[in-house]
């Protein structure tokens, strides 16, 4: 990619007054200047108290500096402070700010500017970050030869090389690649046509009108596609159980790892694909659902904050986290109260709420929902960040910080009754497994076990 692609990037209109009543951080589209947002910061430092990185890393100046202070100081050619690369993009500071300063939008924008203007395209850091950010590409390749990839990725000398040459920590196990991707399974099960049939049959069984408009577009993201297709399969089965016809539109990466690594042009490329296919479906009356909370976060918040793509607002307003959607539209609590789970799923779970679920107001959802489910206990292991933050914890120089942030969660997991983890986020799951050796499941898998025969 040439540098000129990077400079095409311009942040779109951020927070609107409607969305965050007290802030007046409106930027006019032609002049992408975040100063108005910066000026509604009154330096209360509340955001700093919610930053997991500032809590353990003395070199990190914190969100107040990265966001409003930096944008206020920066005029014209001042360069972005490199510490913005130490921000993990957990977005916790966003919901902390009482006056609606669009902090993560400022961080994402600053990171984009830093990477495109200050980071050498030949540096190991750039190459490594780009590889990590474009995980989907390597995953696609690996999924062609999953067994070989699994063996190679965790082969000692290869990991030593990855760390030495690329700064990818040797401490972590690479995620396993599934032998059948989600979309391979989807195609083998008849794709959209098959889903339509099964959903109709379910509606009949439930006594609902055969022609009820229950249609969702599933944004599976990279992880359910290549690594945990069982989560995608659970989503399809649970939705079909409630009579929904599922479609799986053409899609790229949600962009989350790219935002976090300042690769905004890469993110835009995939966002264009996603918005284009999803907005067509939204026009036809579909809602989009995602099983990964970072994917739904990206579609709902980061897209409209960063890009100006036709249909982007519509897609944001019609995207939901998959369990949240069912809670609103179905009597999920009622059905769960009458269900129980078989012996194949453990009875006690240690639940960790991902930061990106927190920002969508979903951090207590699993605990609330499964509270009445027979045979299952879900214990919240506290509000600390898991520390991995997507690609963050994969970087050799960030590994220690990442584990230090996660320490509180590990302790709480060990102290909890359950020995199985539960979370919506695949990278948090990775960290939970890494820190405790627990097996980790997704709430959709629990729903599947409880509701689908």
């Amino acid at each position: 990619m040439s540098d000129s692609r990077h400079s095409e990037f311009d942040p779109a209109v951020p927070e609107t007054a409607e969305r965050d009543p007290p802030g007046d951080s409106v930027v006019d589209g032609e002049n992408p200047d975040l100063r108005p947002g910066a000026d509604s910061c009154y330096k209360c430092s509340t955001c700093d108290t919610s930053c997991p990185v500032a809590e353990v890393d003395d070199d990190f100046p914190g969100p107040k500096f990265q966001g409003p202070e930096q944008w206020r100081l920066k005029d014209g050619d001042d360069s972005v402070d490199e510490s913005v690369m130490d921000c993990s993009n957990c977005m916790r500071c966003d919901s902390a700010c009482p006056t609606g300063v669009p902090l993560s939008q400022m961080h994402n924008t600053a990171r984009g500017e830093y990477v495109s203007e200050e980071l050498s395209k030949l540096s190991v850091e750039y190459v490594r970050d780009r590889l990590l950010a474009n995980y989907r590409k390597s995953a696609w390749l690996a999924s062609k030869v999953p067994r070989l990839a699994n063996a190679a990725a965790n082969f000692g000398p290869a990991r030593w090389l990855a760390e030495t040459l690329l700064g990818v920590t040797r401490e972590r196990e690479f995620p396993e690649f599934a032998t059948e991707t989600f979309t391979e399974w989807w195609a083998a099960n008849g794709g959209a046509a098959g889903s339509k049939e099964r959903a109709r049959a379910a509606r009949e069984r439930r006594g609902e009108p055969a022609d009820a408009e229950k249609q969702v577009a599933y944004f599976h993201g990279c992880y359910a596609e290549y690594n945990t297709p069982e989560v995608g399969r659970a989503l399809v089965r649970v939705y079909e159980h409630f009579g929904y016809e599922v479609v799986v539109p053409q899609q790229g990466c949600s962009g989350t790892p790219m935002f976090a690594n300042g690769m905004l042009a890469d993110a835009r490329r995939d966002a264009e694909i996603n918005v284009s296919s999803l907005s067509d479906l939204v026009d036809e009356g579909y809602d989009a659902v995602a099983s990964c909370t970072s994917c739904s976060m990206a579609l709902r918040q980061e897209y409209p904050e960063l890009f100006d793509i036709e249909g982007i607002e519509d897609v944001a307003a019609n995207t939901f986290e998959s369990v949240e959607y069912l809670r609103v539209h179905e009597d999920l609590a009622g059905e769960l109260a009458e269900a129980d789970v078989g012996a194949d799923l453990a009875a006690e779970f240690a639940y960790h709420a991902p930061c990106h679920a927190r920002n969508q107001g979903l951090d207590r959802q699993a605990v609330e929902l499964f509270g009445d489910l027979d045979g299952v206990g879900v214990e919240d292991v506290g509000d600390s960040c898991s520390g991995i933050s997507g690609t963050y914890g994969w970087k050799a120089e960030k590994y220690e910080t990442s584990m230090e942030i996660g320490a509180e969660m590990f302790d709480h997991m060990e102290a909890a009754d359950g020995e199985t983890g539960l979370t919506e986020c695949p990278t948090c799951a990775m960290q939970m497994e890494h820190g405790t050796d627990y097996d980790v499941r997704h709430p959709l898998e629990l729903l599947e076990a409880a509701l689908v025969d």
Partner: protein
Amino acid sequence: MAIESEVLVIGGGLAGLTSALAAARAGADVRLVSAKQSTLRHASGLVDVLGYTPDGDGPISNPYDAIPDLPDDHPYRTVGAETVREALALFDDAVPSYRGSHTDANALLPTHGGTVKPTARYPAGASAGVASDPRETLLVGFESSVDFDALRAAAHLDAAGVPFDVRGATVRFPGDLRADAKVTRYAALLDANREVTVGGRQRPVREALAERVKPDLGDAERVGFPAVLGDDDPAGVRESLGDELGAAVFEVPMGPPSLPGLRLEDALFDALDDAGVGIETGNPVVDFDGGDAVERVYVEKNGARIPNAADQYVLATGGLVGTGVDSDREGVREPVFDCHVEHPDDRYEWFEDEAFGDHRFPRFGVSTDSGLRPETADGNVEFANLRAAGSVLGGYDFAAEKSGGGVSIATGYAAGRRAAEAVR
């Protein structure tokens, strides 16, 4: 369909949390939705019931005795002194780490500015610092933490005539933290008693901190630090510092962002969890359906509107600071349900010319019937099933009276109880 409960509380500040807890303990199925983090993070963590009269007389020694003399429209008059007592009993039960329940009288606590403040409940961590205690005191500030100037605070306390000798000292926090280190950074280091480098040697931070303070200790029997002494285990941090120093250790409540405020918030959320309350934070309620009664409200997430329905609602969205009351040049309003907020049409009557004059704007807020239901301009109930609590209420000025925490707890409790009674 919608996400459903019997009682829905809107707002996650002291008022909302208390009201959800009171309703759940009374047997209702309760959900709480809140937009942002509450003003607890800005507050000192002290719970004031009534420190001064609306006319500025005080400090008041017994708030309960003073309640009958408050103006008719004051929220304490609406709920009555007995309810204030019950509400604080609920608070004491839910937050056992707080002190002050042994007496009706206000305690006097030193603040980071060196004043003495009348308050009803205070964190255990502050208790060794009470101003009525005659023990010689050393206040310790950190070079890197400019929010607390220990020498100045000590001089102010001395000038205020406290009944003890007090000195201040400034030390460098071991490990040489960055100049603008976050309060959570100190707390995390102390919680885990992590090793820091001092003089080229690794040492546990609690021990190293005590070493730095010792040369200034003299005959002091108690030592006050800024309120950064741990987040998960403040009692443990104080105890080991105290052991090293051979003196009682306390925290001086600080300005925002406030760790004691954060700890209080955590303790209340834990109590809500134990009571089985569903909690959702991060997104605002922006709209509602309903006529004489509220049918459902909508939580907004980036354009998506998530319906939440209940039989009874509590509005605890805060005041001008918490965004429960909104003002612009045109007027003052309650933005979620558009409840009436009494205010003069002429904007120049909202305030007085002197900075510390008797302004009207701090008292802006909804007015209610005796059941805390907001009323229209002509005195009718706005919605049959909506109650209001905390600083969204009008008729009092928490900053001048030092009554913020108490009004939130008392009216939150009353609104929550009544909402629960209405569904049972």
